[in-house]
């Protein structure tokens, strides 16, 4: 069996308390993989704690958001010839034991992207109402616009094949909010996408990117525009072109 180079990318902002645990969990479950923490300009000791836990760390000089941090990880993976990238959040919400399930889909070539969905029965994740409504809406929209059954469009728990990683290194990657719009973009570019049941935990502090009333509304508007633009664009050509970093 061929050994493929796997990189686990962990975007992290202000996670000095949790990052060591996340890294330990990843290393215990995927010992053959390299672990890269992208410190998104954290003002605390996230980078130091990550290094101490044995991970590679790339620190961005200032905070630019989840999508930029992730893309930094993709660019690193491309530069160093990794075959598979696993994305997992740095706050401990994603169960590292499920990484193997995501990897299995990519390694067996069932799909180019394995999306870890918290709604497929593994675990009993329950979220706040307004966010749930938004997720159901965008999940339905993504399902309608692709030929997939999408249940968790905003999942940050994924495994990606090399070709997808290279695709994401180009300017197609929507760094603002890489959610349902990315799934639609992947399908339009001809990639195979599969959902995999995974376990997720709610963040204890309750802080998330989409707290409150106004933020979800703005998110919804931006996502609708991004989806509309995705439908109007034709990014298939970028699959064949080399990435321009």
């Amino acid at each position, binding site marked *: 069996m061929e050994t493929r180079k796997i990189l686990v990318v962990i975007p992290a902002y202000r996670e000095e308390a949790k990052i060591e645990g996340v890294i330990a969990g990843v290393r215990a479950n995927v010992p053959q993989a390299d672990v890269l923490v992208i410190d998104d300009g954290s003002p605390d000791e996230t980078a130091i704690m990550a290094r101490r836990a044995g991970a590679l760390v790339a620190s961005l000089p200032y905070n630019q958001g989840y999508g930029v941090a992730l893309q930094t990880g993709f660019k*690193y993976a491309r530069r160093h010839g990794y075959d598979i990238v696993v994305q997992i959040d740095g706050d401990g919400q994603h169960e590292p034991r499920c990484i193997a399930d995501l990897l299995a889909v990519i390694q067996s070539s069932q799909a180019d992207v394995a999306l870890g969905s918290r709604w497929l029965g593994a675990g009993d994740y329950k979220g706040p109402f307004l966010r749930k409504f938004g997720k159901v809406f965008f999940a339905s929209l993504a399902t309608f616009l692709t030929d997939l059954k999408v249940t968790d469009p905003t999942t940050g728990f994924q495994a990606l094949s090399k070709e997808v990683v290279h695709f994401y290194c180009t300017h197609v990657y929507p760094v603002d909010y890489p959610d349902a719009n990315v799934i639609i973009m992947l399908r339009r570019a001809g990639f195979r996408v599969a959902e995999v049941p995974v376990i997720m935990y709610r963040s204890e502090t309750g802080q998330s990117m989409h707290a409150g009333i106004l933020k979800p509304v703005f998110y919804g508007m*931006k996502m609708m525009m991004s989806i509309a*633009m995705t439908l109007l664009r034709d990014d298939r050509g970028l699959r064949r072109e080399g990435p321009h970093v």
Partner: protein
Amino acid sequence: MSRPQILIVISAVLLLAFVLEQVRRRRLREEYSWIWLLTAAGYLLVALVPGLIEWVSGAIGSVRPTSVFAFLGLVFLFLISIQFSVQISRLTEQNKDLAQQIAILDSELGRLSQAQAPATTGPDNERGGSIPAELPSSQENAERALD
């Protein structure tokens, strides 16, 4: 519809279409397109909703309805200029941070290259066990910074 109204509607639609096309082509980032889209939408609203333009001109204080469009245009120009200034300020700060990091990484890279040069013993090896462990990530960061 009066002639000014028709002109406003046509201009607003053209502006809308132009901005959306720039976003579609990725020449204009979605996040910076909103103020232009809202402005075009605002113009359309004022031009098309009956009585709205009269209400606005009354609210401003007896001006001709057609002057309302000019006034709104000025307001928009102020707002967009302020947005530009804010963005430029942020970019300047980020630019400074990037330049400083490059300077520091460049210096460290130079030091590492020297340390790896064959002739030396002694002082370079006294820096302690942490250097070998750090080498990969510092080098990657330096390589990345030179992109």
